[in-house]
């Protein structure tokens, strides 16, 4: 086993850099969606973006652009429908979820020839991340950090109790629409890393693990980033050593970390309990 060897490959260096940006993006966005119970919305946005990929594939433009357009439109639509009309939010999400997949399947079917990008869209390939994609991830990470630093108290207030926040004339709609847009872009750029099927796990597992250790949003975000980074890098190394698909291995690693921390927490609670007895 040689861990230095892969570091010599450009694609592996790219994958490591992508892991870092992915951990930062998913740390902020993931902690927010977990805290606010928006995991299902995020699932809807993820799958709706497949429609944009199918379209991009058929008409021959960049798949990221197609996915981003579909993700943003579906994110804003869900946000709008749930706040302004009587359509129930989860029903609206369910419809967009399957509509996006249907459009994606139809256009992929219509495109002649073999569909190599399809597998990478569904399962991701962190080892194939391009320079452009790395720059996009870096850019998004910076925007997200600046947004959270600038508006954190307002974000916390809106996320915890939106009605109360509006009584203080906080720009609730600005916060909400900005965040749902950032969620959509975060999902699209992470599809490269772990694919449509697994991207939700990148967003949810580290924050859920972090939530075992803290009950406040700010430390939860920071812990999510650390845990995300640990899981991504460890998973990447394991996938190289065991010759397994990178996206899936990373997810399994995240789950293992969650399991270990959960176990430690239960054991320590037990010992504290025994001491009291």
């Amino acid at each position, binding site marked *: 086993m040689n861990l230095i060897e892969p570091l010599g490959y450009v694609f592996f260096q790219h994958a490591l850099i992508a892991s870092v940006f992915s951990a930062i993006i998913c740390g902020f966005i993931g902690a927010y969606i977990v*805290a*606010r*119970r928006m995991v299902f919305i995020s699932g809807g946005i993820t799958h709706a973006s497949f429609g944009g990929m199918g379209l991009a594939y058929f008409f021959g433009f960049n798949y990221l652009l197609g996915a981003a357009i579909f993700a943003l439109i579906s994110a804003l639509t869900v946000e709008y429908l749930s706040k302004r*009309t*009587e359509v129930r939010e989860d029903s609206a999400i369910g419809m967009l979820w399957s509509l996006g997949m249907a459009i994606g399947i139809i256009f992929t079917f219509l495109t002649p020839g073999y569909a190599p990008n399809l597998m990478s869209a569904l399962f991701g390939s962190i080892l194939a991340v391009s320079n452009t994609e790395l720059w996009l991830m870096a850019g998004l990470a910076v925007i997200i950090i600046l947004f959270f*630093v*600038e*508006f*954190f*108290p*307002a974000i*916390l*207030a809106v*996320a*915890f*109790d939106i*009605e*109360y*926040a*509006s*009584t*203080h*004339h*906080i*720009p609730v709609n600005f916060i909400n629409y900005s965040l749902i847009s950032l969620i959509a872009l975060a999902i699209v750029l992470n599809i490269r890393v772990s694919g449509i099927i697994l991207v939700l796990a990148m967003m949810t597992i580290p924050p859920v693990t972090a*939530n075992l250790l*803290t*009950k*406040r*949003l700010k430390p*939860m975000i920071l812990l999510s980033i650390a845990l995300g980074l640990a899981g991504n890098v460890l998973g990447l190394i394991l996938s190289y050593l065991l010759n397994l698909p990178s996206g899936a291995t990373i997810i399994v690693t995240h789950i293992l970390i969650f399991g270990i921390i959960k176990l430690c927490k239960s054991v320590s609670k037990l010992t504290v309990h025994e001491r009291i007895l």
Partner: protein
Amino acid sequence: MSNKLIEINDLSAGYYGKPVIHHIQLTVYEGDFIGIIGPNGGGKTTFLKTIAGIIKPLSGSLKFYSPEGGLIENPKLGYLPQVNSFDKSFPISVEEVVLTGLLSAEGRLSRFKASDKEKVRKVLERLNINHLASKSIGELSGGQMQRVFLARAIVSEPWILLLDEPSTYADNRFEAELYELLAQLNEKMTILMVSHDLGMIPSYVKSIACVNGRLHYHPTPEITPEILRVYNCPIELITHGMVPHRVLSTHQENSSTDESY
């Protein structure tokens, strides 16, 4: 007569274009303490949320004046929602919840100052929950949570305090404390309070508004079966605990529960 703070004229409000409350007419003056009663589904909470700015009026007008006089857009409001409308597993501490009461559109969106934390500490002390400051919201009992939300409502020292069922989870001791505190706050703040606790409120509020689709204002704090009948306010008169004497100013308390349906 003291300054008017809120002027409500022919106001209708509700959800998705369907009004729940109609043609409301009410002027609130500085120093008022209005108890809002009414049957379930009558629109008490809708009324309070409309004043709070959470729900936009469908028609009619809702105007605010500053205590110095003069029309203003953004009055200083303190709002206490019903406690059961929260996600109790949300990752937030008591101190952070109360700090959000100091947020405002005019600055303070990004960072809190040391003086803000000092204000929070003082309010928590006043409500005897200073020891809970670093607890997460999920660790609190219903009554404790209600105190936290009251702290959040009053921390900015608002002109108008809007309270939706502040005593739902209060035990007897806190209930007495709460009403004493509200009486103190009323010296500086104007209070509108939704309550189902008809036995308690008449001895603390100064006037009664019955909301049942429409609003009927009664300038004294008495609740009698006659008033409820005249105002078409079908609520049951249930009293419990020590009932202050002046509430029962009619001679029909024995038959009140039967007649008030």
